[in-house]
C-alpha cells in the first residue's frame, strides 16, 4: 500500500476532491437558498420558475451536466476561463456540481421551512414585517436549523459525486484510481481500499458533525 503512495500523488488527488467539494458546496448553498426563497415566495411566477429549476436539474444525470459543462460551454461556446485545461475543467466542474446540488439544497431548505409553524409566518406579517424581513428574521434561521440533517446528506452525496468530474479530466481521486488500475493491476485490491477508506475519512465526520449539530441546534417548540 505504501508503494501506491510513493508512486502516485494520492493525497494531492484527495486534495482536489476536497477543493471541488468545498467550492461546489458553497456554490450550491448560495444557489439553493435563492431557489428555495423563490419557491416559498408569494410571487407565482418565481414559484413556478423555482419548481421548474429543481425538477429539471434534479432529474438530469450528473455525468451529462458535467460533460455538457465541458463540451457545451468550453468546446462549442468557447467560454474558457483559463488556457490551462486543469484549471478550466476544475472551474466548470465546480459550476456543474454547484448547480446540480443546488436543487437538493433547495428541497432540503424547503423541508426546513415547513418545520416552522404557519402561525409564525402569519404573526411576522401581521406585525408589519415585509416578506424579506420575515424571511430573514423568522423563517430562514429556523429553516436552516431544521434542515441540517438533509443538508448534511446532500453534502455527503456531493463529496462522492465529485468523482463524476473525472469524465472531463479533473485530476481528482476517481481519475487517479483509473490510472492506478491501468498501470498496476497487481495492486487492484489496495487501490480500492485506499480510495474507499479515503472517502470514508472524508464523509464520516460530515455525518457525525451534522447529527451532533442537528440535535444541538434543534428549535425547541
Amino acid at each position, binding site marked *: 500500500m505504501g508503494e501506491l503512495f510513493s508512486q502516485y500523488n494520492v493525497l494531492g488527488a484527495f486534495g482536489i476532491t476536497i477543493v471541488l467539494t468545498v467550492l461546489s458546496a458553497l456554490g450550491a448553498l448560495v444557489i439553493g437558498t435563492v431557489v428555495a426563497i423563490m419557491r416559498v415566495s408569494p410571487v407565482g411566477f418565481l414559484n413556478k420558475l423555482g419548481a421548474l429549476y429543481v425538477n429539471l436539474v434534479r432529474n438530469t444525470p450528473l455525468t451529462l451536466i458535467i*460533460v455538457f459543462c*465541458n*463540451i457545451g460551454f*468550453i*468546446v*462549442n461556446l468557447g467560454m474558457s476561463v483559463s*488556457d*490551462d*485545461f*486543469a484549471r478550466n*475543467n476544475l472551474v466548470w466542474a465546480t459550476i456543474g456540481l454547484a448547480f446540480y446540488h443546488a436543487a437538493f439544497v433547495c428541497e432540503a431548505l424547503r423541508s426546513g421551512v415547513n418545520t416552522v409553524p404557519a402561525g409564525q409566518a402569519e404573526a411576522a406579517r401581521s406585525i408589519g414585517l415585509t416578506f424579506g424581513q420575515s424571511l430573514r428574521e423568522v423563517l430562514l434561521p429556523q429553516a436552516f436549523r431544521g434542515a441540517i440533517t438533509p443538508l448534511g446528506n446532500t453534502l455527503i452525496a456531493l463529496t462522492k459525486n465529485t468523482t463524476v468530474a*473525472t*469524465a*472531463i*479530466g479533473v485530476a481528482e481521486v476517481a*481519475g487517479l*484510481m*483509473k*490510472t492506478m*488500475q*491501468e*498501470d*498496476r*493491476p*497487481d495492486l*487492484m485490491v489496495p487501490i480500492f481500499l485506499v480510495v474507499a477508506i479515503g472517502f470514508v475519512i472524508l464523509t464520516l465526520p460530515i455525518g457525525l458533525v451534522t447529527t451532533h449539530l442537528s440535535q444541538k441546534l434543534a428549535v425547541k417548540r
Partner: protein
Amino acid sequence: MKFGRISVMAVAATAALGLAACGGGTSGGSGGGSGSVKVGIKFDQPGLGLKAGADYTGMDVDLAKYIAKELGYAGTEFVEAVSAQRETLISTDQVKYIVGTYSITDARKEKVSFAGPYFIAGQDLLVRADDTTITGVDSLAGKKLCSVKGSTSATNVQKKVPGVNLQEYNTYTLCVDALKAGNVDALTTDDTILAGYAAQEANKGKLKVVGKTFSTENYGVGLKKGDVEFCKKVTDAITKYISSGEWQKAVDKNLGPAGYKPGAGNPPTPAACS
C-alpha cells in the same frame, strides 16, 4: 442472415472433424473444445475492436476469431473488456482470452499471462490534416493535448513533456470532437487507435496521424496466468496468422484506409510461453 448461420455450421463441422482427427489424448483442462468461446475485446475502438449494432469489426476482432477457429471453437461470443477490468475478467474466467489493445507489461504479468506479441504499436499523435506545426513529441511545447483519463498514454506523455497542457476525457470520441472543433491541437495514444479514428468516414481527410512514435506497445493476447498449454496453442495460432498472410490482410483492411503502415518490427515474432 442465413449465410452467417451456414458458415458457423461449416466452422463447427470443420472443428468437429478436426477434433475427431486429433484422436484421443489432446482433451484436457485447457484449450480446444467445441461450443463457442467467450473473448474479451474493446467495443469502442474503430479499426481495432468496434461494436456496431450486432456486428464486430476491427483488427483485434479478426485475430480473436482466427484464434477461436484455430483452437477448434464453433464460434466466438464477444464480451466488452474495459481496460481496468481486463485482469479481473480473465482471472474470474468470465472470458477465455482477451484481444483488446492489451500491452504486455511486467505489472500486468503479475495477474495474467500473455501470448504474443501479435502487433507492435507505439504512442503517436493525431492532428488536424492542415496542421504542419506538430511533427512529433518534441514540438508539443505550448500545444493543447488530449487523451483518455487513466490511460498509459496520458501518463507517458506527461513524463515526456513535463507540464504539458493535457485535457483528459473518459472516451477518445470526445477527444476527436474537441480536436475537430479546434479546442485541442493533438490527440495522443497508440498509433493503431489513432489510425482507426483517422480512417472513420466522418474524419476522412480532416485528421492525420503524425507517424512518429515515441513509445513501444507490444500487444499480446491476455489469458489465464500460468496456463502454459493454452498459451502455446494461442501462440501457434498467432504465428500461423502472421505467416499465412492473414495478419497483413487484417491490417490493410482495418487500418489501411487511413494510409497507416505498421511501424518497424512488424509483424513481430511471438515470444515463447513461460
